[in-house]
């Protein structure tokens, strides 16, 4: 049964990693505009990640 002492922390850590990832995603506005993010990934002019809140500005030319 001593294997529990190893397995329980491991399973907790894995869960905590998932929870941390989710928390980060919510905090980084990834749930604000899911449709827009899905569309932007197809835009060749932009290398934005979903959490990128930058706006498009006029190109210098």
């Amino acid at each position, binding site marked *: 049964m001593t294997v529990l002492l190893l397995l329980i922390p491991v*399973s907790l850590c894995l869960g905590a990693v998932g*929870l941390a990832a989710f928390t980060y995603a919510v905090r980084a506005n990834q749930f*604000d*505009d899911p449709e827009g993010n899905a569309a932007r990934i197809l835009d060749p002019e932009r290398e934005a990640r979903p959490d990128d809140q930058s706006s*498009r*500005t006029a190109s210098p030319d």
Partner: protein
Amino acid sequence: MVSDAVLTGAPPAEAEPARLSFSVPGMRCAGCVAAVEREASRFGAARVNLTLKRLTVDVARPDSATPDRIVSTLAAAGHRAVPLDADLAPDGDDPVGRDLLLRLAVAGFATMNVMLLSVAVWSGADAVTRDLLHWISAAIAVPTVAFAARPFFSHALGAVRAGRLNMDVPLALAILLAVGMSLYETSVSGQHAYFDAALALTFFLLIGRYLDHRTRARARSAAAELAALEVPRAERVVDGRVERVPVADLAIGDLVRVCAGERIPVDGTIRAGASELDRSLMTGESAPVSAGPGTDVHAGEVNLTGPLELEVTARGPDTVLRRMAEMVATAEASRTRATTLADRAAALYAPGVHILAAVAGIGWWLATGDLRIALNIATAVLIITCPCALGLAVPAVMTAASARLFGAGVLLKDGAALERLADVTHVVLDKTGTLTLGAPEMRWDDVDRDALAVAAALAAGSRHPLARSLATAADAAGVESAPVTDIVEVPGHGIRGTWRDGEVRRGRAAWVGADPVDDTATYLSWGTGASTAFTFEDRLRDGAAEMVAALRDRGLPVTILTGDTAVAARALAGRLGIDDVRAELLPEDKAQAIAALEQDGTVTLMIGDGLNDTAALARATVSISPASGLDAARAASDIVVMGADLRAVVEVIGAAEDATARIRENFTIASAYNVLAVPLAMAGYVPPLIAALAMSASSIMVSLNAARMLRGRS
């Protein structure tokens, strides 16, 4: 890549950077997003939110980048944009939803882990191992419950302080008691710990809470969007120059120009110009009224034919339009408040559960004399009574219903409106603008085709509603316009031109030289002395007849309340087969008619679009308005139909009945489950793991039943 003014944060003194918002309803794809952002980025940093169909532009110099210029630039690229009032537009930020989502995630994480540990306990862990697993569960469960279940604790505390019992009181008590009992059991090396059940309870309840919040947030954002549409602006004339300013900046005595086809922004007196006014929003009357210098006009009326210059006599809160709003507030306050099904269920549930748990606890204590067993049983009863199915029963159905209605072009501003709608026993309709389009259609009895050809030529370029309708009718009948030359529009009178070397005129009876008829009509004089009258009637909205028929099939009596003349109202009611018509009503009369009906125990649904309906809309138990209605009417109603077709109303009533049926079924499922499980729990036959599993099963049943709403009507 941010423009200089934004980077330095030092804007020029007279033009501060501003954020402009637009609604761009046509955006659907990645290409649209790129195109809209590219066009708008000429004016400043642009960002699209595709979920909300919203564009925000951070403009460095608002004096050169006006909303109008951005709209026309986007229009040139093929995207219709509507400026939104930045103060009113919802910004899409949702801190409460985010907070709930985080609590939900934490609860989910903790539930899964503790469930795993419980399986280990259940499959036969013995004394020391079991204690270890229990202590680990406790270490996960206690902080999780403290964080994730806080919304329930604070709501329950608020209710208890106010001397009431709501759904959250038994929930909070069950969670606290379960955790407390389990801690005690763990500390004395007992067998039964309910950490898993307490966490599963919190998790399922948070799902219900989050769904409920999403429905409400969407409804609120829809309402705010409607309110922010059409930024009220006016063209002020200063020293012969015209400038566009927000209505709030106008002062009494300012001169304001209103172009043909625009809505009048303020109350005022005409100083120059001649035109015709559409006063239907104030009076419900569809026929245009002529106006010239000295005529008093009110905000909300539409200027039809010629430009007008007004002197402002009242603006903003002092206009007749806004004074109506006060009447609406009074009507709203006297509205019959229906209790929702969830409230009624909670009122039965909360005391019932407490009594059962107390009876079980005291009974076991008296029978065995063992307080620990007694408390254990009482906790099992509180957990097993399945408040989570009850907590999910309503929000899951409401989320499904509002998703289905959103797809059908219906905005639900208040979820509880669906429940009230299902109880409606009487439908009250406005006439102009609701049953009819508020736009006149030509009558075809003895129309001379040659006369029509000339009249159509004269009507071609006019914005007057009668002229437009005449041109449409001629076009539809295949009548070709006669070759009329030298066409001149005389504002406030009509249009004249030259045909076969003689002058022809189409317009008002006196100007044309014709004998006026009783109906809404436009007149044509052609050749020497000969004149013809074209008469019009208001056209029915698409689906109006079907809607009235469908309402009657459901056994709902229909009444028309209108400000229009009795003759016009009866004619239209006759076509739809409605007997109960009350005509020539003032706005107060409409609200009183509704109040009288409600006094007799009738549950009324009011459908209306105009300012004169607003008080009645607010007074009725449920109200629906078309999106074409005035914003005050949309604001006063619970449900807004975006399309022009009235059959959507029948769809909404159908959805309301479905939703209420699903809610009742869900309550039945939850109760049936309780009737089975509670006696077992009271008898002490429910171990913690079974309690947690049974609870989850009933929650899933309830959610699946709610999902049936999404299929629509078969």
